[in-house]
C-alpha cells in the first residue's frame, strides 16, 4: 500500500504539490491526469525518493520514504518506474539493459537474471531483440524495453510517468497495450498520462491534478461521465 499524507513540495518559489492526500491499495490501477505543471510527475518521483518533499509523509508498505535512515536503494527495488524519456542504457544490448540491475543490485546469477530478462522481454514483445542495441530500435520498442527492465526487478508497484508522451503517435498503441496487459495481470500501477481513453479503460480510479492540488478523484465512469470540479470540466472539454 502507498500512503501519501499531506505532501507538500516546492521548487524555489513555486509550490508544485500543495498538500496531497492519496492512498493506493495493492492491485489497484490509479491514473493521474491533469495539465502540464500540475504536479503529477513530481509526485511520482517523490514516491520513489528521487525528489525530496518539504512536508507530509509518503509511506510504502510501512516504510516512510523520506524518513532519515530509510534505505532508498532497497526501497526502490519494489518501486519500478518508467519515464517519459526511455533512458535506455545505450552501451548495453537490450538483454544487458534488463539484466544489469538484477545482477548488480539483487545479486542474481547471470543465468538467473538472463532467464528473467528473456521472460520479461518476451512478455513485452521484444523476445527477438535481445542482442540488439537500443539505438537500433524505435521509441516504442525502447520504451517497452524500459518497462521490461523495471519488471525484471520484480517490483510490487509500477510508476509510469507519461510513458507515451515522447512517442510518435503510431507507436503509442504498442506501449499502451503493454500497460493494459500489466493492469489485467493485477500489477499495482500509478500512471501519469495524457491518454484519456486509456485512463478510462484501465483505471480503478482516476485522479485529476490541477495546480498542485488533487481536485477530484473517482472511478473513471464517474470522473469522466459526471465531473464535479469546474477545472476538470474545462480540462476534459479541452482534451476531447
Amino acid at each position, binding site marked *: 500500500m502507498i500512503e501519501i499524507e499531506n505532501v507538500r513540495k516546492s521548487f524555489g518559489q513555486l509550490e508544485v504539490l500543495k498538500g496531497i492526500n492519496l492512498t493506493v491499495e495493492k492491485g489497484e490501477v490509479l491514473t493521474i491526469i491533469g495539465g502540464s505543471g500540475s504536479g503529477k510527475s513530481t509526485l511520482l518521483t517523490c514516491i*520513489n525518493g*528521487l525528489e525530496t518533499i518539504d512536508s507530509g509523509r509518503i509511506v510504502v508498505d510501512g516504510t516512510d520514504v523520506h524518513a532519515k535512515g530509510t534505505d532508498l*536503494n*532497497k526501497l*526502490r*527495488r519494489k*518501486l*519500478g*518506474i518508467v*519515464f517519459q*524519456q526511455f*533512458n535506455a*542504457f*545505450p*552501451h*548495453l544490448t537490450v538483454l544487458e539493459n534488463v539484466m*544489469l*540491475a538484477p545482477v*548488480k*543490485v*539483487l545479486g542474481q546469477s547471470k543465468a538467473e537474471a538472463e532467464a528473467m530478462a528473456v521472460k520479461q522481454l518476451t512478455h513485452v514483445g521484444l523476445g527477438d531483440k535481445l542482442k540488439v*542495441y*537500443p*539505438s537500433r530500435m524505435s521509441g516504442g520498442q525502447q520504451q517497452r524495453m*524500459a518497462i521490461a*527492465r*523495471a519488471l525484471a*526487478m520484480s517490483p510490487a508497484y509500477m510508476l509510469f510517468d507519461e510513458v507515451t508522451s515522447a512517442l510518435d503517435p503510431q507507436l503509442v498503441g504498442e506501449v499502451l497495450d503493454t500497460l493494459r496487459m500489466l493492469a489485467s495481470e493485477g500489477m499495482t500501477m500509478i500512471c501519469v498520462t495524457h491518454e484519456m481513453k486509456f485512463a478510462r479503460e484501465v483505471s480503478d480510479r482516476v485522479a485529476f491534478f490541477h495546480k498542485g492540488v488533487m481536485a477530484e478523484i473517482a472511478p473513471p465512469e464517474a470522473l469522466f461521465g459526471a465531473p464535479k470540479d469546474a477545472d476538470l470540466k474545462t480540462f476534459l472539454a479541452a482534451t476531447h
Partner: protein
Amino acid sequence: MFSYTFHWNQALKALPQMLDGALVTLQIALLSMAIGLAVALALTLFRLSGNRILGGFATAWVEIARNTPALFQIYMAHFGLGSFGIHLSPYAALLVGIAFNNAGYLAENFRGALKAIPETQTRAGRSLGMTSLQAFRYIVMPQMLRVAFLPATNQMVWAILMTSLGVTVGMNTDLAGITQELNARSFRTFEFFAIAAVIYYLIAKAVTLAARLAAARMFRY
C-alpha cells in the same frame, strides 16, 4: 658552407640498440597511461563526490598538471622529491612525472565527456535501486570512456613524446637517452636524431592506428 658529411652506416649499426630503447619508451608510456587513467578516474570521482576537500584536491591536481611544463613535473619528481629525501631513479621519476601529467589531462578529458551523458541516465540507474557508485560504474563510466577514448589516444601519443624529457633527469635506457649517448660518443647528431625521430613517429602512428581499430571493435553501439 655545407661541409657536413652524412655517415648513415654508423648510425644504422646502432639501430638494434635504439629499438631496445624504443621498447623502454613504449613501456614507460603504457605504464604512465595505465596509472594516469586510474588516477584520472579517482580524480573524477573526487570531483563528483561533492566533498570540498576531495574536489579541491582534484582541481588543484588538474590545474598544476595542465598549466606547468611537463619538464618541470619530471624534474620535480626527480630533483624536487630528492630534496625531501625521496630518491626516485630516473626511470621512476620519469614515470611518475608523466603519469602526473596524464592524470591531469585525462581527468579534464573525462569532465568534458561527462557533460555528454544526460543526468537522466543516472536517475534511471538509481531508480533501479543502484547506489550512486554503481550507477557511475555500470552506466555512466562506460559511456564516458567511449566519449573520452579518442581524445585519450592523443594523450597516449603525448606520453610517448614526453618520455624524451627523461634525458634531463639522467634517463639513459629509453630511445631518447640511448640516442643522446650515441650522439655524445660519435657526434653523428643529425643521423642519430633523425633515426630516433622516425622511430618516435612510427610508434605514435602505430598507437593511433591501434586505438582506432580497438575503438571500432569495442564500441559497436
